[in-house]
């Protein structure tokens, strides 16, 4: 009987790890569809960001209530992994609670802590479900939060509650079986929460109890392995990418826009033409200006999109979104991810992407959304995991204006004024210091 369980477990584990690795490699490939961007500097500051923003969740604490609830779930996730390690080793080797003899009394303290965390996780997830579905907190109800994004969030919370309930059931029945001195159930002594719950099963037949314990154990670990494979298809992938994304966060002042050296070069040639006999190698003609589709963005933009957990703090802070415009920074990130997945699917099928007549700009994100941005950086400031929607917005604008000549007429007038009068308004440069006349 034990050997069958062991073989089944090994098979399940290998399949789960294989599928997860395959999908993660596809995501990695998709991210590197983006242009290169060299981010190697300031290692110390970057590790500091990983500690503060990812491990410490510093930005989450701009908003206390969700921050504390989220911290329960996060701590539960990180710490209960130690328990999952034991479960996997037990499963692979056919032992039961193999860490107990190794750790002695410390084992009970650890599992006791996990049980308390499990209760806190259940509480946190329950409140989150209420906030999303009953209180209907505004940032979870916007136009992009229908269908899959809405159910995705609920599935995650329900799965986490079920996993924690299974974990507690497993420990509680285990406790009762230990009290009955059933063979194979290592005498670990009581754990803090399950010891209190064990009397609930005082009347149950031993056979039923073993069935419940094994059932809970199997469902729990199968659930965990399923959840692992659910992650890369879900917004919940942030639990992994939040760490590298914080490392690669932009360290420059938020007001600084990326330079376009190819245009800088063109403009220099315009003002200082090289001598005619210059045979120096010309740089290759630039491709597209700005970005029209996913491969035109850089890999950090694309990693941002996979990191986004659709919490909507960006959109809630966006002045355009608050005043009813179509723009939602969260939707920019979701669209980028969706388009990347669409391209990725074609690569999975055909081995390469040769264009499908669609693009991120126009087919996913409309000009009306992009024109509405005030570049105020509120979205960038709010993101707890260092995502920058503004950078994408500005790159898409560059394509619309420079490649596709689609700037709004009022902006074309402004451009004309700058070109002709060196000011965005129609005034003569000679009047620049007219204000001095009445000083």
């Amino acid at each position, binding site marked *: 009987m034990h050997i069958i369980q062991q073989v089944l477990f090994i098979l399940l584990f290998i399949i789960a790890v294989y599928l997860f690795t395959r999908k993660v490699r596809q995501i990695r490939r998709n991210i590197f569809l983006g242009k290169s961007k060299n981010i190697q500097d300031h290692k110390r500051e970057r590790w500091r960001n990983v500690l503060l923003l990812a491990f410490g969740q510093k930005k989450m604490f701009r908003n206390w209530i969700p921050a504390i609830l989220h911290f329960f779930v996060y701590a539960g996730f990180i710490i209960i992994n130690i328990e999952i390690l034991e479960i996997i080793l037990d499963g692979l080797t056919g032992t039961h609670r193999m860490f107990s003899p190794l750790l002695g009394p410390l084992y009970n303290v650890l599992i006791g802590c996990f049980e308390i965390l499990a209760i806190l996780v259940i509480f946190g997830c329950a409140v989150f479900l209420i906030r999303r579905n009953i209180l209907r907190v505004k940032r979870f109800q916007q136009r992009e939060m229908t269908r899959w994004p809405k159910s995705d969030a609920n599935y995650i919370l329900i799965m986490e509650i079920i996993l924690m309930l299974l974990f507690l059931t497993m420990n509680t029945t285990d406790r009762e079986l230990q009290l009955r001195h059933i063979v194979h159930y290592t005498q670990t002594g009581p754990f803090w929460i399950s010891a209190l719950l064990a009397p609930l099963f005082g009347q149950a037949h031993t056979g039923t109890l073993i069935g419940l314990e094994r059932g809970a154990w199997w469902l729990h670990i199968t659930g965990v392995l399923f959840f692992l494979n659910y992650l890369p298809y879900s917004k919940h992938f942030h639990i992994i990418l939040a760490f590298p994304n914080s490392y690669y966060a932009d360290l420059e002042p938020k007001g600084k826009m990326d*330079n376009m050296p190819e245009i800088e070069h063109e403009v220099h040639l315009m003002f200082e033409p090289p001598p005619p006999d210059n045979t120096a190698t010309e740089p290759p003609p630039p491709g597209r200006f700005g970005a029209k589709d996913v491969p035109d963005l850089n890999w950090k933009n694309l990693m941002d999109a996979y990191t986004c957990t659709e919490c909507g703090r960006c959109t809630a802070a966006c002045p355009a979104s*608050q005043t009813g415009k179509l723009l939602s920074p969260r939707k920019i990130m979701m669209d980028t991810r969706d388009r990347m997945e669409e391209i990725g699917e074609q690569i999975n099928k055909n081995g390469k992407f040769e264009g499908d007549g669609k693009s991120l700009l126009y087919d996913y994100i409309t000009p009306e959304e992009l024109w509405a941005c005030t570049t105020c950086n509120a979205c960038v400031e709010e993101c707890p995991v260092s995502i920058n929607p503004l950078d994408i917005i500005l790159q898409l*604008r560059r394509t619309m204006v420079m490649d596709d000549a689609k700037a709004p007429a009022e*902006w074309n007038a*402004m451009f004309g004024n700058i070109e002709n009068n060196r000011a965005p308004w129609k005034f003569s440069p000679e009047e620049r210091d007219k204000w001095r006349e009445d000083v």
Partner: protein
Amino acid sequence: MAAAGESPEVLFWVGCAGSFDQRAQKITKAFALILEKVGIRFAILGNEESCNGDPARRAGNEFLFQMMAYGNIQTLNNYGIKKIVTTCPHCFNIFKNEYPVLGGHYEVIHHTQLLQQLIDEGRIKMKEGNAFKGKRITYHDSCYLGRANNIYEAPRKVLQALDTELVEMKHCRSRGMCCGAGGAQMWKEEEKGHIRINAARVKEAEATGASLIVSNCPYCMTMLSDGVKANGREEDLQVLDIAELVAQSME
């Protein structure tokens, strides 16, 4: 000055709004008056000043931005300019963050920072019983001074020196709400929505019970003044730049 072989302590970059917009000209005059009173030797570029390219760049027109930047950097470097002060956070941001990579390296400060320094050094002293003492005011963080460059305290310290009663809006400092003009929005109609951004922001100011909104940016000045008008509060809600407060209150 350059003709006389002299070089100024600081270049006052007036900016397009500060040069041409009638309301912003008052801010320019107020700030120039402060500089003169304190005895700072400053220069302006006059008609050699050009748009720094911010609205073009943020609208997506990198070519036009690069052309303006090229010209301005030539002019500034020809005059050997080392230090720039400006009353516009957009000019401040672009000189400080975006010109260096193009070859324009200057020490750049925003006028609110200079005012704070001058107050700290005792070079600006407020009149006994200045007009703003005890007045209930609120302060609007501009995006390009605040979030873009993390300057939240300098302007507030100036307001402290004026002994005003500062009441913060619901969204302030790093959470400050945009006036609606940044990213070249100043030059076009807003997209369709249920309220204009400036009207929404002025509502937040109204909720503080203040009778004065203090700003640090000529665009914010336009947007907030229009918002006050749109909300019908012209009679009892004023918008002033921080330089105007100081100019009116200093000895």
